[in-house]
């Protein structure tokens, strides 16, 4: 995160050559290179990292996408695809010597088949607009990342996005049937199919979550699900987050897969409650929101059981949403958690580790110790059902020491996640942000296997290079830096 605002000097000759080659088939307004035109693309949702791209290309159809890739391949220009730019790991950070391929203009819902419960959509379509289009048929698209009003489905595929309902309804990979993908050579391949599986290797699964390193998705066929008849949520407050964690385990042990199961710790509750008046008890060490959805009978049965389990697990307050308005109010607090925490401090740094749930109390204790070590506060929001923890580290980016501490704090949290048997990223992706932590999670043989797979799709490493999978050289450097942490060599050099 630190020292990442930097600029590679533009190679104007190269820039002219690439623009000329692209404008041979693209309209003038579809190829941008003026500093002021390309600056809006300098970062994605992780704004601590910025880099102005050499060229921005804005294709309007699949043919143009293919032609742009073919051109870049011929000229050996690296390409970074970008959807809505809401990603939180810098996956769409441009390259100063590369083309930023914006998929934003491919925003048509091509077809929606209510009987087959599928929709064919272009990558720039917003996640929520699929559900909106499906709503008249009683259907919806299940994965609902918190950015769903803005994020694009193409970006969701690249990141394998989840959401608060993914324990029950799965991630993007579980909710798509087919992809049309442009290869770096500019050819179209189809992965998956109209049925529930396809011949040969499951390249659909491999492509999903590959962060733009294997191909550029030009069309997605998503599955639509019937909208549940009803939903209700239980709010339970605990004096201790470990007890709350045990309550989650007790719900699962009772054979219930909640539609959503979220935990917030006290710093988060204190930030949220004055912000949205969700009715959260501010004296609680942690609260759980546990949602049931399905038919009326299913929900009534499950809610009754969840209520009892929360009480038996030691909740000092249990409330069930009485109507849809109250259900939405309970959720409003959770959905406003990030902006509410954001008001407490000039900046916050959102982490995304996943841990085995039983290690939660231990991990939270570890984070408390780190708060003292790095002299920074941390609020925790937790997708408790699936173990995905979002610690929000509060800092002030204008203070270089705080910025450095926030970065080190984050890396130490990720290290802890790996140590307890978890992973450095549950849903935000590696991007540039967590690339060094990949060296901790995977050994060199595993990283080499990733590189070999990358090579199978993109032998000249032109698709989003420098993201997601670190080079072994980089890991060797990182290992050295780790040993001498605090006495890093060449602190003035960019390190992203």
């Amino acid at each position, binding site marked *: 995160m630190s020292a990442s605002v930097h600029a590679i000097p533009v190679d104007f000759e190269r820039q002219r050559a690439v623009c000329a080659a692209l404008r041979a088939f693209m309209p003038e307004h579809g190829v941008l290179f003026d500093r002021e035109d390309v600056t809006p693309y300098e970062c994605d949702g992780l704004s601590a990292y910025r880099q102005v791209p050499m060229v921005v290309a804005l294709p309007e159809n699949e043919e143009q996408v293919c032609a742009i890739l073919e051109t870049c391949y011929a000229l050996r220009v690296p390409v970074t695809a970008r959807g809505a730019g809401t990603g939180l790991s810098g996956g769409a950070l441009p390259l100063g010597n590369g083309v930023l391929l914006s998929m934003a203009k491919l925003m048509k819902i091509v077809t929606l088949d*209510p*009987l087959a*419960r599928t929709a064919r959509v272009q990558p720039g379509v917003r996640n929520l607009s699929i559900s909106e289009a499906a709503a008249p048929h009683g*259907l919806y698209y299940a994965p609902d990342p918190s950015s769903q009003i803005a994020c694009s489905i193409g970006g969701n595929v690249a990141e394998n996005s*989840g959401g608060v309902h*993914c324990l029950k309804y*799965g*991630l993007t*990979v*579980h909710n798509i049937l087919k992809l049309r993908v442009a290869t770096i050579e500019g050819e179209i*391949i189809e992965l998956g199919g*109209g*049925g*529930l*599986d*396809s*011949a*040969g*290797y*499951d*390249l659909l*699964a*491999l492509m*999903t*979550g590959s962060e733009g390193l294997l191909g550029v998705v030009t069309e997605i066929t998503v599955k639509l699900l*019937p909208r549940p008849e009803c939903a209700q949520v239980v709010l339970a407050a605990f004096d201790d987050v470990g007890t709350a964690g045990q309550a989650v*385990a007790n719900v*699962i042990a009772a054979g219930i*897969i909640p539609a959503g199961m979220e935990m917030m710790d006290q710093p988060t509750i204190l930030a949220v409650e004055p912000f949205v008046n969700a009715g959260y008890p501010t004296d609680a060490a942690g609260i759980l929101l546990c949602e049931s959805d*399905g*038919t*009326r*009978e*299913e929900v009534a*049965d*499950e809610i009754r059981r969840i209520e009892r389990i929360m009480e038996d697990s030691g909740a000092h307050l249990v409330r069930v949403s009485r109507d849809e308005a109250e259900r939405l109010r309970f959720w409003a607090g959770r959905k406003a958690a990030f902006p509410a925490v954001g008001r407490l401090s000039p900046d916050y740094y959102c982490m995304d580790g*996943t841990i*085995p*749930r039983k290690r939660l109390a231990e991990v939270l204790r570890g984070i408390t110790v780190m708060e003292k070590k790095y002299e920074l506060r941390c609020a925790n929001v937790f997708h408790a059902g699936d*173990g*995905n923890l979002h610690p929000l580290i509060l800092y002030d980016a204008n203070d270089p020491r705080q910025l450095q501490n926030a970065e080190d704090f984050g890396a130490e949290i990720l290290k802890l996640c790996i140590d307890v*048997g*978890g*992973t450095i990223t549950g*849903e935000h992706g*590696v991007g540039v942000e*967590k690339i060094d932590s*990949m060296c901790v999670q*995977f050994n060199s043989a*595993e990283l080499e*296997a*990733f590189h*070999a*797979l*990358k*090579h*199978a*799709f993109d032998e000249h490493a032109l698709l989003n290079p420098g993201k*997601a*999978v670190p080079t072994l050289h980089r890991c060797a450097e990182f290992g050295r830096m780790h040993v001498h942490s605090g006495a890093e060599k060449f602190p003035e050099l960019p390190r992203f």
Partner: protein
Amino acid sequence: MSDPATQFADAIRAAADAKRPLNICGGGSKTFYGNPSIGETLDVTTYRGIIEYEPTELVITARAGTPLADIEAAMREQGQMLGFEPPHFGGNATLGGCIAAGLSGPRRPYAGSARDFVLGLRLLDGRGTDLHFGGQVMKNVAGYDVSRLITGSLGTLGVILEVSLKALPLPPSEMTLCREQTQSEALALMNEWAGKPLPITATCHVDGRLYVRLAGATPAVHSAAAKLGGETLADGAAFWRDLRDQRHAFFSGESPLWRLSLSSIAPELQLSGAQLIEWGGALRWLRSDSDAMGIRKAARSGDGHATRFRGGDPRSGAFHPLPSQMLKLHKRVKQAMDPVGIFNPGRLYADF
């Protein structure tokens, strides 16, 4: 005696050095599936046992040679199951074979496939290198999703050593309904129902009868049964188990068995031979002596693919031919994981 995983790695390195193919074998319950195997047998059944099972984390991790039946029994004891209802086909099916074949049973369209439930795995690649991908947590997007790529690759990319799977709770109650229905009516109903919030976990049409399994909270099952109508099948569990393991009468006989995986709304197939429909219309089993070309053409027109599942003319490959671009990519993926090409050559496609 050394650890079986070390022995496998040694065998792989020796085979790679000598460029000798290896035929990776579990319980042998699915040797009929795919193209014929060649090479020296690498028996992985010695590497067995459940490593870790945390019911409240919804995760089970076991070695590849563990009998599927053992895993399911351990899960049943905790009120859980494998959500994709994997076929056993015989008594000896192992976890490794289950994941390598990637086949799923009647619950698949309603709960997910084998690959959907895979959270992570450990495997030996074509150099005998021990690799871990994914993990034991529900959400993990670090690195490419190699675990799901391996699922269904029929052992052509590596020797699976250990697999972590997501567990699901057993439903508190189940009920199977059946009724007389023509095939086209059944297809229409299956698709219509799937668009409604009903607790359906399996559907099948065979011999002019439509079967539907409901599962979940008892009141929800009863309420859905009242909505759908039809008579209750006394031993529903046996019906679905026989279907899953192909012990249903439809699967006996001499005609080649084809598996057509299609769009659920693909119309009735105009092909000669008996048909059985599963997966809400997305899976059509066909017993037919028709030529492979015609069957595959029909599958293509249903936006799907056709597998020669059992029997038939081995000169037509078991799996649907790949477009040239995809075949090229498959060979390169194979090359990445198994550079010398020693694992199960030809089992999936003749070219690699």
